[in-house]
């Protein structure tokens, strides 16, 4: 117990000092600086991810125009939300929103934060609600895994943190905001290039497929829909050339990767028929 006395006394000196100034205030200042440095290394927040996602989405729709069809859009959002509520991240900063791009390309894009686009070509390629849910589940998995944010070059966020750390207020001066906008633009470019040109890594795609199968099963969709969709995509490789086939690993490899994850239990037949009927009546 005697050995503890100096420690306890030191702790009290620190606490009292912090309250009354003097040595304490220096210690407090040092602690604050250390704390600020720790906070400065924070990751991109959900709110920041949202603003990045909006700019990525705006850039994508400048290349692929939106398809305006309320009935189809409402259905797409209902299927997407029925899956996202069973995801690891059912709440994002401003929620999930699904929309259709007027393109014959077979493709889908997940913008950071929860904006998800699917092409008309992809809607034509899926056979039923289960397969549509599988495609959306894959995109939701990319958002849950923050793969879009991971596509931003590390040096950009390091630079952004320096700007953020040097400004005391939430409103930046013209120099600060100009620097941040430059970094923001670079980040958008990194993500759009990854989504449209380079694709994510093979492991990110495989992980998204496996996670999607888990989301489908939790939501009550037939998880084997992921495999049946990929099988058909592989058989129609010529028609589906470009689009997602350009940015994703080979469909055969994706089927191999996902096969073991599919539980043996299939969806209840009555529900499957109801879902297939509403899919056909909407599309």
């Amino acid at each position, binding site marked *: 117990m005697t050995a503890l006395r100096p420690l306890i006394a030191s702790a009290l000196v620190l606490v009292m000092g912090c309250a009354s100034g003097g040595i304490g205030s220096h210690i407090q200042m040092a602690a604050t600086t250390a704390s600020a440095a720790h906070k400065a290394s924070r990751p991109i927040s959900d*709110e920041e991810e949202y603003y990045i996602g*909006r700019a990525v989405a705006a850039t994508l*729709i400048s290349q692929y125009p939106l398809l305006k069809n309320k009935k189809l859009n409402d259905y797409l959002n209902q299927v997407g939300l*029925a899956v996202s509520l069973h995801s690891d991240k*059912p709440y994002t900063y401003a929620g999930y929103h699904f929309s259709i791009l007027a393109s014959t390309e077979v493709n889908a894009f997940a913008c950071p934060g929860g904006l998800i686009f699917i092409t008309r070509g992809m809607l034509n390629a899926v056979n039923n609600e289960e397969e549509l849910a599988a495609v959306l589940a894959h995109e939701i998995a990319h958002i849950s895994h923050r793969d879009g944010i991971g596509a931003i070059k590390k040096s950009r966020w390091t630079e952004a943190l320096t700007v953020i750390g040097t400004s005391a207020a939430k409103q930046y001066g013209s120099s600060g905001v100009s620097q941040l*906008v430059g970094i923001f633009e670079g980040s958008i470019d990194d993500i759009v290039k990854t989504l449209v040109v380079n694709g994510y890594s093979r492991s990110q795609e495989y992980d998204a497929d496996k996670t999607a199968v888990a989301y489908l099963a939790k939501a009550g969709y037939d998880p084997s829909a992921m495999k049946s969709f990929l099988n058909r995509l592989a058989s129609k490789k010529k028609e589906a050339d470009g689009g997602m086939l350009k940015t994703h690993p080979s469909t055969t490899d994706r089927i191999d990767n996902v096969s073991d994850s599919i539980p043996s239990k299939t969806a209840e037949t009555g529900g499957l028929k109801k879902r297939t009927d509403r899919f056909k009546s909407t599309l």
Partner: protein
Amino acid sequence: MKDLLSILPVLLVLLSVAVSSAEQARIITKENALREDCRFFSPLKKKVRLNDLIEITSKEGDWLRAKHKGTAGCIHKSAVDEKNLDISGVSGSKSHSASGSEVALAGKGFNPQVEKTFKEKHPDLDFKAIDAIEASHPSDESIRKFISSGALNQP
């Protein structure tokens, strides 16, 4: 020993301050709600907004029982900054509470001011279309009915 006993009350006070301030967590979504029960689509008791501080009282699976300005209810853990969530008394996890400076730090970085300047630099980008996508959102009731009519699992 006498010395130790004499400073014990001070240590206890310090400890209680640390414990009581460690039960707060910060809302990280634009809007959310404390619900009556710990499930989606349960009736709303109180709306909460970004950076609101809530007091966590217990944990039920992926849901948290919490209080905000006297109103108690449930909120999903994905709506809360888990880093700032102290549920040590409940689950044994290790973290710390949301401090005032952390709350002040929120909103810095890529924020509305950065988006506004980005938009001015890129007038060709159609942010109004993105706003419209975000504004068009099915109601909780329509999603609940959609899930039910398709014999899917309620979340």
